[in-house]
């Protein structure tokens, strides 16, 4: 195993973790709002959040590239300082976060929709305000589905390629991740390295899907109360 391979794996672990952390809290809140409330523009918000699921990742990457470029909406000129995102590990995090968001929000939303709202009302009649009800009843009731959402989001971040390579590049030792490293190894014919990385990818993916299957199967029928 070469140093760049190890560095790619470590970077993937780091960026996927950071991206998951960034996405989880606002994603969960947004999912709850989408599941429980109706308001004008709700469908538009849900659609925008879901877009990265169906758009070509390179197109999302290109959009991000324009957003963070010198004159972009979040570029150095507009912000007044340089956040140093493009072509750094931060760009990997940005790409992974955007691409993982729809999976997290959609999975979490379906989970919240499966929590019987009458159980929340019940908690309120027992003296719990809205916020306490959310943290002590809604979240625990949704915990399995939310964990599945987080695992799916993390796995999606680990496998992110198109948007990442567009805004972070594929710089060995700096912005090269598991998926871009497989691409490079295959391009130059370093088969052993490609096989090893393929094995890691298989393992992570297998474990993730297994876990979500388990989580959804053992859900104890909350709808029926």
């Amino acid at each position, binding site marked *: 195993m070469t140093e760049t391979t190890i560095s790619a794996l470590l970077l993937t672990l780091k960026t996927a973790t950071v991206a998951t952390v960034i996405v989880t809290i606002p994603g969960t809140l947004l999912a709850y709002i989408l599941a429980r409330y109706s308001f004008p523009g709700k469908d538009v918000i849900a659609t925008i959040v879901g877009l990265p699921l169906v758009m070509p990742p390179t197109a999302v990457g290109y959009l991000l590239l324009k957003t963070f470029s010198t004159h972009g909406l979040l570029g150095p000129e507009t912000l007044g300082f340089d956040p140093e995102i493009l072509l750094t590990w931060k760009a990997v995090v940005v790409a992974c976060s955007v691409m993982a968001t729809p999976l997290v929000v959609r999975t979490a939303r379906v989970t919240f929709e499966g929590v*019987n709202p009458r*159980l929340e009302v*019940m908690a*309120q*009649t*027992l*003296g*719990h305000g809205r916020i306490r009800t959310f943290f002590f009843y809604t979240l625990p*009731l949704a915990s399995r589905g939310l964990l599945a959402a987080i695992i799916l989001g993390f796995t999606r971040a680990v496998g992110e390629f198109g948007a990442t390579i567009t805004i972070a590049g594929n710089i060995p030792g700096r912005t090269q991740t598991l998926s871009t490293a497989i691409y490079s190894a295959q391009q130059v014919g370093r088969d052993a390295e490609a096989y090893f990385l393929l094995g890691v990818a298989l393992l992570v993916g297998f474990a993730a899907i297994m876990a979500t299957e388990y989580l959804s199967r053992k859900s104890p029928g909350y709808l029926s*109360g």
Partner: protein
Amino acid sequence: MNTPTPQLRISFSLPLDQFTLQVDYTTAHQVTGVFGVSGAGKTSLLETVAGIRKDAEGVIKLGEETWLNSTDNTYLPPHQRKVGYVPQDNLLFPHQNVRQNLLAGAKRAERNQREIDSLFDRVVQLLDIAGLLSRQIGTLSGGERQRVALGRAICSGPGLLLLDEPLASLDVALRYQILPFLHRMKEEFRIPILLVSHDPVEVQALCDDLLVLKAGRITASGHPREVLTDPDVFPVADREGFQNIFPAIIEAHEQETSTLQMGEDGSSIRIVTPRAAGNPGDRVLVGIPAYDIILGDHEPKGLSARNILQADITNIHSAGTLNLVTVTLGENVPNLVVEITEKSTHEMALEPGKEVHLIIKTASWRLHE
């Protein structure tokens, strides 16, 4: 524990799909029943009192506390109303075990200066659920769920209990096992209760006051027995006919029968029933269908029936070809209702004030204990 029951005022209108629920009622009885067929608006009424329905207009007050007053835009959300709500489907929390469910409202109980440990112990003992405390909700039977849901509501230290068809989800055998628990709870905790039901037996066993709801309107109200023997209500009451139900105290056991003191302490009426399971001194609920009582106009002799009770007719209601005759037996004893045909009424020349004798077979009594 003999503080007077706080007055409950419900006076509001709530638009529903088919009609507008419109009630205006004030009660200071401990247990007020809301009786009616399904779809009459009973559950919506409870949900409005609990604060779950926010679109009601009017006034809801318990004692000095105002929970809803549309004129000054007062609306307390559910968690600020001291209600213990027991919905028809229990709604126990599946992510908590029985103990955690019972203590789900403990914080509120403490805020209301209730000592939660002793309250918890009393509830567990009264509802006989000590053996269930560490069980998961999914493993409980229907009757156990019902008791836990009831216990959870009481452990939250409510000022008003809202019970939605507490027996409806249970099969008949189980239903009359839960009834005594409800009755004991009523006696022990003295919490005001608003109880929704379409079961006349349940209503009679538990309620001190009854209102009848039909398509969102109150069509009758008063003492449960009076209301349920009202011919206008009778068709609503039950297809099986009127069921008398009243409290009694076990006095002695014989081989296959028991002697019970009918009604409250100090009553002089004794009845012979099938052998009771409890011990002498225990309270039980006794039921008898109105059609299982025979009326005689003089004291009969040489009958195999073990119960012959002297009584006076207080009133006679006509319900189609049947008459419901209400009779009084004495002090501290609930009145009984006897169902006879219109023809018998005429032939025996029955009228209010006339003395009669009730003839009841031992096996006709139903004990709920």
